[in-house]
């Protein structure tokens, strides 16, 4: 596996905060769970209406998604298994390596 399979089960989640309260909740959760923010560049940019793409580890994702549901914050799972997406990105390479 690439990167020793370290991203197995990790997810990338997209949230678009509908109001300032949701934005604040998302900021707090992002800091609390130390997510890897893909967009925007930093937590301070999280604001109402702005795309927020979060890379969350396998263990964290269940807890985080539960918090979002509880806070009634809509989300989309952009990438459900990051390891598979990493492997697929350089598809040629992985098959080449296997060969």
């Amino acid at each position, binding site marked *: 596996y*690439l990167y020793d399979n370290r991203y197995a089960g990790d997810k990338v989640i997209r949230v678009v905060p509908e109001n300032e309260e949701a934005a604040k909740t998302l900021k707090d959760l992002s800091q609390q769970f130390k997510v890897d923010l*893909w*967009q*925007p560049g*930093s937590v301070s940019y999280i604001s109402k209406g702005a795309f927020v*793409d979060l890379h969350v580890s396998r263990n964290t994702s269940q807890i985080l998604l539960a918090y979002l549901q509880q806070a009634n914050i809509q989300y989309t799972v*952009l990438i459900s298994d990051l390891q598979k997406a*990493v492997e697929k990105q350089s598809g040629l390479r992985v098959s080449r390596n296997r060969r």
Partner: protein
Amino acid sequence: SLPGYSYDIYHSLEEIQSWMHHLNKSHSGLVHMLSVGKSYEGRPLFVLKLGKRSRVYKKAVWMDCGIHAREWIGPAFCQWFVNEALQTYQTDPAMRRMLNQLYFYIMPIFNVDGYHFSWTHDRFWRKTRSKNSRFHCHGVDANRNWKVKWCDEGASIHPCDDTYCGPFPESEPEVKAVADFLRKHRKQIKAYLSFHAYAQMLLYPYSYKYATIPNFSCVESAAFNAVNALQSVYGIRYRYGPASSTLYVSSGSSMDWAYKNGIPYAFAFELRDTGHFGFLLPETLIKPTCTETMLAVKNITMHLLKKC
């Protein structure tokens, strides 16, 4: 160029550096490789000077890719641009005019340490790999470390944050090396283009404030024509405008510094996509992304050659 070197896959740092060495030898009439310094971990910072050699003074365009390590499509585009230029110099009148009348300084990987780390350890690493004496965290955001409104809004003073501005402006050897080069060539360089991902945007100053640049109409029309040229290929829409209002406010960026340093056309491309794949844009999309971006860059370059 390099036999068997594929431009629609992602390459490691070593592969890209040997590609540059090869071009330096095989296309000496149009390519000259130089090093502008060394990275924090001691790797050379290679730049390709592309263009017909001439004793006559020529203006120049600077292009850098890979300021943020995880944005692999950037370095892929820089390589694509060089190959396209070499392959079409004889057949494409526009490219011939560009390379005869201008030099292009192309830095395929700005953040060499971070890029290497993103291949070997952490695919989503963003920053440089400098060590912080007081914290266990590595790295500075190379796009927050420039001496323009340094460490103001949109940058973090905390070393573990992704947008950490560094202990002082140009603290990062990579940033200092490029800033020194651009300062030295400031009279010659008329456009600064930096390639990032992902968001599908073409941004111009200012990032650090909501204000209009003095040469707004010229820059705006260049951006407008560039995104239209880009869209004409596959219909992909890029938003364009001042970075502060189109993306978000950020301080210490290379684009703002280049503009403040006297380069009249400074742009930052946020290449594909808008989030479906994010940093993991598949290799199958390298070709369309680079093909459309090529048109945008040629458009900006031809705008430079006209009087605005």
